[in-house]
């Protein structure tokens, strides 16, 4: 096992374990905490794959914004009694079964995946020479201009939505 | 298009005939007084009837070709045309439809008090739909009219019907819909088999593979047999007939039931001659069962309208029997019998409706001795009774005799079996007449009784008179009607005979399918 493989083995193993922890912990706050750790590992994986910018926003947006939002809501809703009740619902064996079968299917099907297509121009060297953020930025504002604009609209809608739905209004 | 005769008149006569009721219906929307609506509707139906007159005058009886043809682009991307015209088979139904529509308006003059406007709109759209079915020469157009009729009929039964009306209406609608959607699939398959056209004339002139014919025949059979209705697809009929208002029953019996048989004549037989040969026997068997079964059920009925409804099953059994005899007498008798049945059963329903207005009961046992109480009514009713039985001198005889002749010629055994229906027919109709009109009068309805019944008034006599006259006219001079159909029927049979491959069709089919 080469070093990168060993590193992957660690990170991959941790990701799986942490994922399981996230979905099985009784206390949602604990789940959020495990998820935070999970995101850190995923960010590490991104780094490992030469995606520094993504690693950064993984931490900043996911861990920094989304998870905080989750925590915030959990606190807001003040779910104290949660810890005394069942964490799974009745159909959980089905869920588990489906999860396992799905995983088996996936592994059977995608397990032997390999890269066939002709490689693109963004080799590691190419990215390195320009810097990852620079590369991403350039592509984003040229080639992916339209999606970028749409994404901005999505964020706008999210703001409106949050305001409309959650704000207390005087009628 | 050299095999049709385009409309020779200066105006599109068929289009006017079909769509005048629709225009009338639209105008009704803007009227409010019930009486005005009735008069307007009567006016529209009479106008439609008048409009169809030139058809009879100008009709060329010597040719089988479609006449008064109009043909315009309609849906060019599907190769579908607005293509209408009539031949000797369809022209009589135009007459029947326009006539009965007038009578329907007349008979509803007093009996319909509720939602008058909607009722008359339904009647008019119904008329347009029925006429459309008979004039369509494009299968797509035909199907549109065929299905569109269901809507007003559904409402007629369901809104203005008797106590079980909702059940009857929905049963009627779904039953016929299931049949006709299968036909829709058949139509589409045919469309491709014929090279993207639904022109009925073209479709009838092509030769299809036996297997295709077989399946298409079945698909069409589903629609037509339900509509006829053939045993065992008949059970919607008693309910629909019984629960429908008088006008609805008249239209149902008078015209709607004819469409199935008309479909056989217009589509099944000309388009699928080989399959027709295969299906002659099953259709014969079902027809004969229908004749006897319907008659036997009549013997046990306790409800006036139900009895007449089941008698329709029996009578329509004769019609299909005649048509599938596939000889001139059988087919012409079948067509004539359709007209006859429309006249006689239509008139019977009219009369029962009139009586229902007086007595508010349809139970046979509630009647009795009415010949004393309402002699004119009884007199007209006996005419209908004997026309229904098929007494010589009435129209019923000509139709039944020709059918039996044709059937006997084609298949002796079935002709004999069918003829027993004539005996049973006399049995139940005379039993009905005796129970209603003879014996001791029901004191309830006598002049001193609680529910005084009165004899026919002028409006009612006018309503019935044309039908009574027709009964005798056709009975004594059937050529008046038969002469229209000779060439068309002859042509149809000629085509059938030249295109039939011969013996062993069934065996060939079995090998093709398996």
């Amino acid at each position, binding site marked *: 096992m080469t070093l990168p493989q060993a590193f992957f083995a660690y990170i991959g193993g941790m*990701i799986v374990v942490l994922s399981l922890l996230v*979905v099985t912990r009784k206390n949602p706050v604990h*789940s959020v905490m495990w*998820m935070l750790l999970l995101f850190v590992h995923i960010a590490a994986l991104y780094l490992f794959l030469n995606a520094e910018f993504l690693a950064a926003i993984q931490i900043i947006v996911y861990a920094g914004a989304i998870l905080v939002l989750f925590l915030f809501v959990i606190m807001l809703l003040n779910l104290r009694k949660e810890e005394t009740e069942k964490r*799974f*619902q009745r159909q959980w064996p089905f869920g588990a079964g489906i999860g396992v079968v799905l*995983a088996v299917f996936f592994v059977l099907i995608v397990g032997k*995946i390999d890269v066939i297509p002709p490689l693109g121009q963004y080799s590691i060297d190419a990215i390195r020479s320009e810097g990852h953020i620079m590369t991403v930025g350039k592509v984003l504002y040229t080639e992916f201009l339209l999606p970028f604009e749409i*994404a901005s609209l999505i964020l706008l809608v999210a703001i409106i939505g949050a305001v409309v*739905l959650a704000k207390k209004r005087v009628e | 298009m050299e095999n049709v005769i385009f409309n020779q008149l200066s105006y599109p006569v068929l289009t006017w005939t079909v769509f005048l009721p629709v225009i009338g219906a639209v105008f009704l929307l803007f009227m409010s007084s019930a009486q005005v609506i009735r008069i307007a509707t009567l006016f529209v139906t009479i106008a439609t009837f008048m409009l169809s007159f030139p058809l009879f005058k100008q009709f060329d009886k010597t040719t089988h070709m479609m006449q008064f043809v109009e043909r315009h682009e309609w849906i060019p991307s599907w190769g579908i045309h607005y293509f209408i015209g009539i031949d000797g088979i369809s022209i009589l139904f135009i007459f029947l439809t326009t006539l009965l529509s007038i009578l329907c308006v007349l008979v509803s003059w007093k009996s319909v008090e509720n939602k008058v406007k909607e009722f008359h709109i339904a009647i008019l759209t119904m008329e347009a739909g029925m006429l459309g079915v008979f004039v369509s020469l494009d299968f797509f157009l035909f199907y549109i009219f065929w299905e569109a009729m269901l809507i007003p009929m559904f409402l007629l039964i369901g809104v203005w019907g008797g106590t079980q009306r909702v059940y009857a209406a929905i049963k009627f609608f779904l039953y016929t819909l299931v049949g006709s959607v299968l036909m829709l699939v058949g139509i589409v398959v045919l469309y491709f088999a014929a090279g993207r056209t639904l022109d009925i004339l073209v479709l009838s002139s092509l030769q299809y593979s036996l297997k295709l014919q077989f399946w298409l025949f079945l698909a069409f059979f589903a629609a037509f047999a339900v509509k006829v209705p053939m045993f065992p697809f008949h059970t919607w009929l008693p309910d629909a007939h019984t629960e429908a208002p008088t006008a609805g029953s008249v239209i149902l019996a008078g015209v709607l039931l004819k469409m199935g048989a008309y479909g056989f004549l217009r589509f099944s037989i000309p388009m699928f001659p080989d399959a027709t040969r295969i299906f002659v026997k099953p259709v014969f068997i079902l027809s004969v069962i229908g004749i006897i079964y319907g008659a036997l059920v009549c013997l046990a009925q306790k409800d006036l309208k139900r009895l007449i409804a089941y008698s329709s099953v029996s009578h329509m059994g004769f019609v299909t029997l005649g048509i599938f005899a596939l000889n001139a007498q059988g087919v012409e008798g079948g067509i004539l019998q359709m007209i006859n049945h429309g006249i006689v059963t239509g008139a019977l329903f009219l009369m029962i409706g009139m009586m229902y207005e007086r007595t508010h009961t349809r139970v046979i046992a509630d009647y009795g001795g009415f010949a004393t109480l309402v002699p004119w009514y009884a007199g007209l009713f006996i005419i209908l009774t004997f026309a229904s039985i098929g007494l010589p001198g009435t129209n019923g005889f000509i139709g039944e005799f020709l059918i039996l002749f044709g059937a006997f010629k084609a298949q002796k055994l079935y002709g004999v079996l069918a003829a027993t229906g004539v005996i049973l027919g006399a049995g139940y109709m005379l039993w009905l007449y005796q129970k209603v009109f003879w014996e001791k009068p029901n004191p309830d309805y006598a002049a001193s009784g609680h529910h005084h019944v009165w004899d026919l008034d002028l409006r009612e006599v006018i309503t019935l008179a044309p039908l009574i006259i027709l009964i005798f006219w056709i009975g004594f001079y059937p050529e008046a009607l038969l002469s229209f159909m000779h060439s068309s029927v002859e042509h149809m049979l000629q085509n059938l005979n030249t295109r039939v491959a011969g013996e062993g069709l069934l065996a060939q089919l079995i090998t093709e399918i398996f």
Partner: protein
Amino acid sequence: MVPLSWYIVLSAIVFSIGVFGFLARRNLIIVFMSVELMLNSVNISLVAFSHYLQSMRGQILVFFIITVAAAEAAIGLAILIAFYRNNPTIKVDEINLLKG
């Protein structure tokens, strides 16, 4: 060198765990987190593909996914709060006013 398939299998397993979480948990917030888990699994595979294909598209898509995820989180939690105000529960199996 780590083979591509390892990443993909990892992604698949995390995805399956997400599915399991979605189907099994009662707490809506954790259900939502399971969805995030599924998104992350997709991200892993996308970044891996991107890396191995030497293409930028995957990473750009990940960028968008993260953006959308943030928007989704905002809206989703807003809906949750709006719901909670009317019916103070976030148990999946207690939310069945609409059924049949």
